[in-house]
């Protein structure tokens, strides 16, 4: 039994009363493959393959109007979230992406800067997005309201989607893991089997969610120019 189900999400540590758990945010830097030799090794080949695929994907989504190299923002975003999500699955390592603190500080400035860029440089274009093509005249005021709301909640949905997914997975694994002591010993293999399945699911979720946040930010940025 747990005293507190949410203790896995507690960033505080007892060392000097500093929240050292947040250090796991930059832990991914140690895992990134470095270029040292001219000829790439297997890690580099694999990593470059992923980055190239993402670059091509984001380039088509951003369209012709985009600035050269703007895919790098979203590729970096993807790798940052990916390393945080994946490392967070391993025991004792803190998952910083399960906190709105981190996810909202990524998504809000990103969305806000896109919006300011659009309002300043493509004002007409930004307003035209508030009414989808072919809207009947009578529905136009409501469509503006709906589109405005759906635009304003975007940074929130980006952040909450990721955070909720990470929290849900960790909670499930914690809950299941804590039934162990009260479980008949002979049936413990069932529990372990379910945990392994859950762990595979969570690994998939970690990758998918980092991809989703990167692709949605790409789409939001492609709308402003």
């Amino acid at each position, binding site marked *: 039994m747990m005293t507190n189900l949410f203790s896995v999400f507690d960033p505080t540590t007892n060392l000097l009363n500093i929240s050292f758990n947040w*250090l796991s945010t930059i832990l991914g830097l140690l895992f990134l493959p470095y270029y*040292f030799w001219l000829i790439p*090794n297997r890690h580099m080949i694999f990593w470059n393959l992923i980055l190239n695929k993402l670059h091509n994907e984001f380039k088509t989504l951003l369209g012709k109007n985009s600035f050269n190299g703007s895919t790098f923002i979203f590729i970096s975003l993807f790798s940052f979230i990916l390393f945080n999500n994946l490392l967070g699955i391993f025991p004792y390592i803190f998952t910083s992406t399960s906190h709105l603190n981190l996810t909202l500080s990524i998504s809000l400035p990103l969305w806000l800067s896109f919006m300011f860029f659009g309002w300043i440089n493509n004002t007409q274009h930004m307003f035209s997005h508030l009414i989808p093509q072919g809207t009947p005249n009578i529905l136009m005021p409501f469509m503006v309201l709906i589109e405005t709301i759906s635009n304003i909640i975007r940074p929130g949905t980006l952040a909450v989607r990721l955070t909720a997914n990470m929290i849900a997975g960790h909670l499930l694994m914690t809950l299941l893991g804590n039934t162990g002591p009260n479980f008949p010993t002979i049936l413990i293999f069932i529990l372990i089997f379910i945990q392994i399945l859950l762990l595979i699911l969570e690994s998939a979720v970690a990758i998918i969610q980092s991809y989703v946040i990167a692709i949605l930010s790409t789409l939001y940025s492609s709308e402003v120019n």
Partner: protein
Amino acid sequence: MAFGDYPKEYNPSVHGPYDPARYYGKPDTPFSQVKIAELGAWFGRRNKSPSAFMGACSRAWWRWQHKYMQPKRVGIAPFFQLLVGSMTVFYVFNYGKLKHHRNYKYH
């Protein structure tokens, strides 16, 4: 020596291409060959400044990189070495909370 510079002792014409895992200063007796009686003097000769300590950590990191991460036909072993290390570090960070988990069965 400013931040990001090569070590003072490094000379490209003598040492060849820079290796971040190598110590370019005057070599001392390797630690494994130090006699017990000489241990105090050996430690006395060490440079204990923060930048020297960071330099030693950086060389150790690159020695590890060369041995496990950088080989051409590398596998997943280095990732698991890093993972075990990270899990240990975070276990130590959180030990103050984790030690109470052994009392859960009494709740």
